[in-house]
């Protein structure tokens, strides 16, 4: 086993990995940019190394500096988290060359699954259903036109190096094809430095269902069932759950087996996820492999009881995977909400600044994976994810109710967050009925505002500020609060009526 691991990331995921290291008796080394000197991951790690200026390109994305930091600190392995260098095959190769263990798949598998076109070819050969479409990159407009006719409109333009919806265009009819190809190319070029695009049949209103896989270095591969991630905003997941309300046991088993076959075909090891689209007729198609630990991994942990980060570290240390497929089962239901520093009332504008007050939600079945603390200054340079709120309960309905209550209990003041918006998503009847597809947010939440009961909440806010001005605030030391005096407001409760025209 490793004695020391460097965590090449920041925020909540760095904190998550540091916790796993501590539990396993492994030393942890944090790295941080100038903007992150006071960040939570720096406080929690056993050691911390400054690696450069605030922009990610000069710090968290700088492979040489990170490797040098690992070697100087005597770390035998690097955990990349998600984002930054997590799916960078060049970095994995560099680690292999320098004798530092990359906690993730081998560089050849990483490279294969990172190339959308090659990955599609490999999966097709292995008998994994792929979205009908071109299997190679075409050169001439005529080839694209012919391919689109074969597939039948609507078709989707996709970037070969793709990800995050960049370079993606839906084309409804032949008249729009040329323009979509050109703009898709331009976006792909600026996002990935590679302008190759291809066409796929457009699956309308699909669900996004993915399967978690673990594979050790000797090819023993198991799946840990699915996560449903259809709730997305601008192609970014914002709420995930497990199990998926769309699967029955037979379909679940087929998708799980297919995911295992896909990962074997790719020569994959360590933790990874096979993403599928599920259409209205419940056909599923391979979308891509996410060759890393995912943001939404906790919902799998809570329903299977497997600690995925611990398994990643064990596999990377060349241990045999001790879990057999027949040992695994899903228990209860888990939901995750991503809490972002964005203002949902202002079209999700980023909201950096100081967290003036923080109260983390707690209670049975509630997990809060966070990279923040009270007084923390949220930097403007990185992803706006602040924390993930994950709940577990016996069934889906109970989990949704628990999530709504936990979101109410999650108080982050000083910056805007998406917590209030997420509560409305969880409370939406279409979501509650388990019918949400990837078009859910666009369809039901084109914008977001006040909502029911806002007037009363606003009045109470004013009453509280007035009271705060009228009555001297006690210092923190003489807080009278005894637990017995605290009454927790019922979730979903609306406040009492205001009475009209009082005496005074």
């Amino acid at each position, binding site marked *: 086993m490793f004695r020391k691991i460097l965590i090449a990331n920041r925020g909540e995921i760095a904190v998550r990995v540091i916790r796993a290291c501590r539990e396993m008796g492994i030393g942890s080394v944090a790295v941080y940019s100038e903007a992150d000197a006071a960040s939570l991951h720096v406080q929690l790690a056993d050691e911390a190394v400054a690696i450069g200026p605030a922009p990610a390109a000069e710090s968290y994305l700088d492979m040489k500096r990170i490797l040098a930091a690992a070697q100087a600190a005597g770390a035998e392995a690097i955990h990349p988290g998600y984002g930054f260098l997590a799916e960078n095959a060049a970095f994995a190769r560099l680690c292999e060359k320098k004798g530092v263990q990359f906690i993730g798949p081998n560089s050849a598998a990483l490279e294969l699954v990172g190339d959308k076109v090659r990955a599609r070819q490999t999966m097709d050969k292995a008998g994994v259903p792929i979205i009908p479409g071109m299997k190679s990159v075409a050169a001439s407009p005529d080839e694209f036109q012919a391919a689109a006719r074969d597939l039948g409109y609507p078709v989707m333009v996709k970037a070969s190096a793709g990800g995050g919806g960049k370079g993606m265009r839906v084309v409804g009819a032949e008249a729009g094809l040329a323009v979509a190809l050109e703009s898709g190319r331009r976006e792909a070029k600026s996002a990935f430095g590679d302008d190759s695009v291809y066409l796929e049949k457009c699956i309308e209103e699909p669900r996004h269902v993915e399967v978690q896989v673990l594979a050790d270095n000797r090819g023993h591969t198991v799946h840990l069932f699915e996560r449903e991630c259809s709730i997305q905003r601008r192609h970014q997941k914002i709420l995930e759950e497990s199990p998926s309300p769309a699967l029955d046991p037979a379909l679940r088993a087929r998708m799980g087996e297919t995911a295992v076959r896909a990962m074997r075909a790719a020569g994959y090891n360590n933790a990874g996820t096979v993403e599928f689209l599920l259409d209205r007729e419940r056909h599923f198609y391979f979308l891509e492999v996410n060759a890393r630990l995912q943001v939404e991994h906790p919902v799998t942990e809570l329903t299977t009881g497997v600690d995925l980060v611990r398994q990643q570290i064990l596999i990377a240390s060349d241990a045999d995977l001790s879990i057999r497929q027949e040992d695994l089962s899903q228990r209860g239901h888990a939901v995750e909400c991503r809490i972002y520093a964005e203002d949902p009332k202002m079209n999700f504008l980023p909201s950096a600044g100081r967290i003036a007050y923080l109260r983390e939600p707690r209670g049975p079945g509630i997990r809060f994976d966070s990279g923040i603390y009270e007084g923390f200054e949220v930097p403007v*340079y990185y992803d706006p994810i602040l924390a993930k709120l994950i709940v577990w309960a016996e069934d889906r309905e109970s989990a949704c109710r628990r999530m709504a209550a936990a979101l109410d209990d999650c108080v982050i003041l000083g910056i805007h967050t998406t917590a209030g918006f997420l509560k409305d998503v969880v409370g939406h009847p279409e979501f509650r009925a388990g019918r949400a597809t990837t078009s859910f947010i666009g369809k039901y939440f084109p914008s977001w505002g006040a909502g029911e009961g806002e007037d009363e909440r606003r009045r109470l806010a004013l009453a509280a500020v007035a*009271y705060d001005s009228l009555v001297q605030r006690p210092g923190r030391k003489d807080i009278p609060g005894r637990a017995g005096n605290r009454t927790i407001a019922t979730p979903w409760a609306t406040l009492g009526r205001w009475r009209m025209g009082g005496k005074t």
Partner: protein
Amino acid sequence: MNFTDFDFLVDGEPRKISAESRDGTLVVREAGLVLETEVRRISANEILFRFGGRTARVHLVRDGERTHVAVDGREFVVSEHRPETGRPGEGDERTAEAGLRVKSPMPGKVTLVAVAEGDAVRKNQTLVVVEAMKMENEIKTAIDGVVAKVHVAVGDLVDSEKPLVEIERRSPSP
């Protein structure tokens, strides 16, 4: 009765209320509506209201001129309304000459300055691009005019308080 008047701005909207607190009871009046509630301070950041058989827990924190308040999972920003000095945190300010001080809606880093002093600008023209958390935001002018002053350069970190660009309302010279 001894009521105190408050002139508040809540998320940009002006609200006038008056309130009195006595013996654990808070009475709030606003345009004919009255709320009478039992009140208890739980901590520096937490106030408990009880009225009509209900309990409402409110969290709040003062941050300079503003107070951030959370009620039932929703946030509000409350400040004192002082019309003569403009509204803090409310975006652009009208200047005395009926021009405009354009501000960033959020803290971030300036990645582009699209205008120079003396440039004529049209309504909705992009003045500055501010990047925050990997998202680019175009900051535009709400009026026609001439750029009187550019306060920022590429690479500057900005907040939502200080003006980025000042626009004078006048027709550009032909």
